[in-house]
């Protein structure tokens, strides 16, 4: 209940909250009375009350209009959130006129005190003030206020406190809940801008955003951006992208975030298994759209996004800089901040934008009035929303563009934007310095083909391409011919082709393919051209895939170990040539199997000695074990508590014992020892049978590690 009230209140303007607050102060009341205690136009109060009733925050009880119970507790946030700070009026209240007379007669100190109490929430601690005096007997201002019943005991709701009831506050504020009007939202400082410039700036930014996003994502498709472990984008990657796009880091972060929101990029593992950001398949679909629709996709994604790209690079609470695409980098208030900021801009007079300097602060104030209960970070959010909208081209020179207005109103901005975009051009101007300038956005097909044979040197509304030997060669690589190239530049250029360009093309074509590369597994070389010709012509050699690449060289796709026997079968006598050009004599090595490994058995004397040593040690070990087993009583283990007493007993009788012991590695072993002393939970003992002078034989054992003690006979 409380939560749902709070949430509903969050969606109210400061004016509406003030009306609701007045309703709480007034208690059960009528609309007329409500109007009388509010500093607002009656019509505003009437519509607001209707709205509040619709929201079920207020209702018409048989006794009159009243606020939903619970609303009073949820109204918080002070004056900025439309809360007057007055207490509800008391049921047995006095007449307003009478109250005003009493207050007017108060001495200055008492009045100041009363004003202070009302301003500070309407409650006060009585302290040493006496209660129940007559006004004549009051000695302090507080006692006087109590005596005049301007401060009342709090009763069971506020035990031990004094309360200034609502009617007293109203009387102090000349019968109204507030001293300022509540129904006038603060105005946003705006000024008229040239519509041509503003729209131009917006469209320019819009085309820029689309072009940059496309450029960046194409680049990422070839050179993926490494993702952080948190899936964010590292500072270095962001900087690289910003440099590539010739924009600031902040703008790059915005573009990346918007692309992610629009689903144009995603993460995947690269060939080394590291996560990288790359364009998604949606990007390919998006790329085929007309510019206006591309923009529309991005703009919608941005508008609904809770991401905070403007924070990228700033330090977070842990003093670490925020990275773009980090999941935590979002605020649920952001979409609303964007909506409110843009809606406010939409409400400005036609052709008006935010005033330079003062515009943004007043916009923040206005949004604060519209949604006063929002968190304190809101000024930042609104500032970012305005800045980001400018980068995206929703606004231009802080004026909401015509298509931006459609976007904010929930429509499809693409058709409006499409009419504003410059028409594509179908030609370029080619100059003697080997540049081709497209004086506007090129038709996609022409742009694609030009990209194959020339490098882009400068982006913008126009594009500058440069022909270089490398770029022309690239064109030849993908299948252009010299004639096609000449014809293409001639057709694309509106100006005569400069002679150096024709020369460049011919020059590159001349040297193109001077070196040829192919695949072969073996070669056949001979000074005797006739012999090679004969071999190629031999029908029996048809299966050898021989190809003559020079008068004296044949190549084959067969590996040499297949080719060689086949050639021998044909009766030619080939020799093998090594990579260093030296002839390898091809004598075939006879086949051999690997010899069996020689064994020790070859030397019977050594083997016998080794074997007898084995036998002796085995017998000794076995016998030692037998002796031990014989000495071990059938019920070997002593109970846990018995370990200590068994050890003490053994020390007393100076007898050897067998202890079961768990060492540091958790391995349980048994030792036959002669216990010497038990002290501080440790047993000191000598290994049984160790020579007396062997100092190492004396060891200590932790008693709690000893699991059992068995006397050894």
């Amino acid at each position: 209940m409380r939560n749902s009230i709070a949430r509903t209140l969050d969606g109210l303007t400061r004016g509406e909250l003030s009306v609701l607050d007045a309703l709480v102060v007034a208690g059960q009341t009528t609309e007329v009375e409500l109007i009388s205690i509010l500093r607002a136009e009656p019509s505003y109060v009437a519509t607001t009350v209707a709205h509040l009733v619709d929201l079920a925050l207020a209702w018409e009880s048989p006794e009159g209009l009243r606020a939903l119970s619970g609303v009073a507790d949820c109204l918080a946030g002070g004056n900025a959130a439309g809360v007057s700070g007055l207490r509800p009026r008391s049921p047995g209240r006095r007449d307003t006129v009478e109250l005003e007379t009493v207050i007017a007669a108060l001495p200055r100190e008492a009045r100041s005190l009363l004003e202070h109490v009302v301003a500070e929430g309407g409650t006060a601690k009585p302290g040493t003030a006496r209660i129940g005096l007559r006004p004549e007997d009051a000695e302090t201002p507080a006692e006087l206020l109590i005596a005049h019943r301007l401060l009342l005991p709090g009763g069971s709701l506020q035990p031990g406190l004094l309360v200034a009831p609502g009617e007293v506050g109203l009387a102090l504020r000349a019968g109204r809940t507030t001293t300022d009007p509540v129904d006038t939202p603060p105005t946003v400082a705006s000024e008229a801008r040239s519509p041509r410039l503003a729209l131009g700036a917006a469209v320019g930014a819009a085309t820029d955003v689309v072009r940059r996003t496309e450029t960046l994502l194409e680049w990422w498709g070839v050179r993926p951006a490494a993702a952080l472990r948190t899936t964010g984008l590292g500072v270095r990657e962001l900087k690289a992208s910003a440099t590539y796009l010739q924009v600031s880091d902040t703008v790059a972060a915005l573009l990346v975030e918007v692309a992610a929101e629009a689903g144009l990029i995603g993460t995947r593992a690269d060939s080394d298994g590291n996560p990288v950001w790359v364009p998604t398949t949606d990007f390919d679909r998006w790329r085929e759209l007309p510019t206006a629709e591309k923009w529309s996709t991005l703009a919608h994604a941005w508008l609904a996004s809770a991401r905070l790209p403007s924070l990228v690079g700033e330090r977070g609470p842990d003093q670490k800089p925020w990275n773009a695409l980090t999941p935590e980098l979002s605020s649920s208030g952001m979409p609303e901040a964007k909506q409110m900021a843009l809606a406010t801009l939409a409400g400005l007079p036609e052709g008006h934008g935010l005033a330079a300097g003062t515009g943004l602060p007043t916009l923040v104030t206005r949004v604060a009035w519209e949604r006063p209960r929002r968190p304190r970070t809101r000024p930042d959010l609104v500032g970012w929303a305005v800045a980001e909208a400018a980068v995206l081209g929703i606004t231009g020179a802080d004026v909401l563009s015509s298509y931006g207005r459609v976007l904010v109103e929930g429509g499809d901005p693409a058709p409006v934007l499409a009419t504003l975009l410059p028409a594509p051009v179908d030609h370029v101007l080619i100059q003697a310095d080997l540049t081709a300038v497209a004086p506007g956005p090129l038709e996609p097909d022409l742009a694609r083909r030009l990209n194959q044979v020339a490098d882009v040197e400068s982006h913008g509304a126009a594009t500058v391409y440069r022909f270089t030997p490398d770029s022309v060669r690239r064109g030849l690589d993908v299948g252009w011919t010299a004639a096609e190239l000449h014809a293409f530049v001639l057709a694309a250029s509106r100006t005569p082709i400069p002679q150096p360009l024709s020369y460049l093309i011919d020059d590159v074509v001349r040297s193109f393919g001077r070196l040829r590369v192919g695949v072969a597994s073996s070669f056949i070389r001979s000074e005797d051209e006739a012999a090679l010709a004969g071999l190629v012509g031999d029908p029996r050699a048809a299966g050898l895939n021989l190809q003559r690449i020079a008068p004296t060289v044949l190549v084959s796709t067969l590996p040499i170990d297949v080719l060689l026997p086949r050639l021998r079968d044909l009766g030619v006598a080939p020799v093998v040539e090594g990579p260093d050009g030296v002839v390898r004599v091809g004598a075939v090595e006879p086949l051999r199997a690997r010899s069996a490994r020689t064994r020790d058995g070859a030397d019977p004397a050594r083997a016998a000695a080794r074997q007898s040593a084995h036998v002796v040690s085995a017998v000794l070990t076995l016998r030692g074990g037998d002796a031990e087993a014989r000495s071990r009583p059938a019920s070997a283990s002593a109970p846990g508590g018995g370990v200590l007493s068994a050890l003490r007993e053994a020390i007393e009788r100076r007898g050897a014992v067998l202890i079961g012991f768990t060492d540091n590695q958790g391995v349980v072993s048994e030792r036959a020892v002669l216990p010497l002393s038990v002290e501080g939970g440790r047993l000191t003992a000598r290994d049984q049978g160790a020579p007396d002078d062997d100092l190492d034989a004396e060891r200590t054992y932790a008693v709690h590690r000893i699991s059992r003690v068995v006397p050894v006979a």
Partner: protein
Amino acid sequence: MQSDKSLLLEVDHPQAPECRKAIAPFAELERSPEHIHTYRLTPLGLWNARAAGHDAEQVVDTLLTYSRYSVPHALLVDVAETMARYGRLRLEKHPVHGLVLTSTDRPVLEEVLRAKKIAGMLGERLDPDSVAVHPSERGNLKQALLKLGWPAEDYAGYVDGEAHAIDLTEDGWELRTYQREAAESFWNGGSGVVVLPCGAGKTIVGAAAMAHARATTLILVTNTVSARQWKDELIKRTSLTADEIGEYSGTVKEIRPVTIATYQVITTKRKGVYPHLELFDARDWGLIVYDEVHLLPAPIFRMTANLQARRRIGLTATLVREDGREGDVFSLIGPKRYDAPWKDIEAQGWIAPADCIEVRVSLPDTSRMVYATSEPEERYRLAACTPEKIRVVRDLVARHQGQPTLVIGQYLDQLEELSVALDAPVITGATPVKERQRLFEAFRTGEVGLLVVSKVANFSIDLPSAEVAIQVSGSFGSRQEEAQRLGRLLRPGEPGPDGERKVARFYTIVSRDTVDADFAQNRQRFLAEQGYAYRIVDADDLDASADQV
């Protein structure tokens, strides 16, 4: 307007001249080929504009007015922000504390004060908005502030220097409009650089600037021959007499009211000190002229840093420095005060039009083999010095028989070979100055029709009669050198008997498929960007194309 801050200007558009005029103050002309000129917005350019009194609003308005497509908002913001950085800090004269750095924007001053590099140059903090500056650090401070991105505006003024009467004597000639404009904008701006193409009469702009200053003047030039030419020109164009002009070079050390010194002598270092530094203090100079600013050697920058109280004028054909120290020119000598595109001046007939032709020769097979197996550092020399070129040069010289021709090269033995093959005198660094002057004079008068010269002829040598230049080798791909060499040809000669002005021909002979061709491409690109039509022909086709040539 492109996102990389370049501006494309369609030359054939009816509004193009108007637009060019509007953007010239703040945008640097980067290339000017035939159809579309590229200008670029740089911080230096924008600050230059601020220094010349343009504000961001004008710039933004111009961009929006002339842009065919909408201008990205971010760029406009960037322009405004960059321009706003200029002049936040000012260097001023304070009646008590001498030189002070003041600011209208306290955070900027704080930021600057915290910069390590600057701390040592500043004195005590006078009040929250100003801080004292050691007068000797005026130049260094400006340099450092520019690097920080907060260029200071220098209001500290200049000393007048020792007065000396200098007037232009305009008998039989007069100052061209652009020369007058250049001198005046320099004078009004205080200090700065005038950019004019080779052959456009930069010396005369220098003389006009001196006539404005009417004070003792120190002129710094690249070499001795150029020093002599300055002297001759000054005697001819101004009221100065030979006695008033001194030469300070390796051979002569005269200090007169007007002294012409070479960079070389000033930067000579002995035992770690510059012995000729005293020259700067020898007189109370009222004006310092830097010829060919783009070649200004690094030590001179350091010396100039100490001369900030004197008026300085820089003259150059191009602000492009191969070492990228344009920023130092801006902060130490001053912002660009005047600039005129080559083509405009050419159109007015003040410099000759030029036809650039690249002739490609194929290396003979034997040479190709030697080339292919040679060390990389040897390759250029091998390619550039192929004997094939001599044959082509001989052909070309024969074709232009009767026209004054220069053959320019880099390698001395190649030049010697050419000299023998063409039977022409050769001038290299080893040729005595007297002999050089004699030969240049003979060339000027037409006595000698063909000269083979090394790179000594690159700079500031007035050979107005040259009509054909044949370049056989150069310093790798230097664009600057290309400009200078072309400049040799652009000094306009007298109109021919038929009233036609000469068309200069600039041949470059290049070995195909070698590094020579790669370097040539760099230089060609520069020429094409300057708007010169160039063609490439094969040496074998040279005869066939004779009709066109």
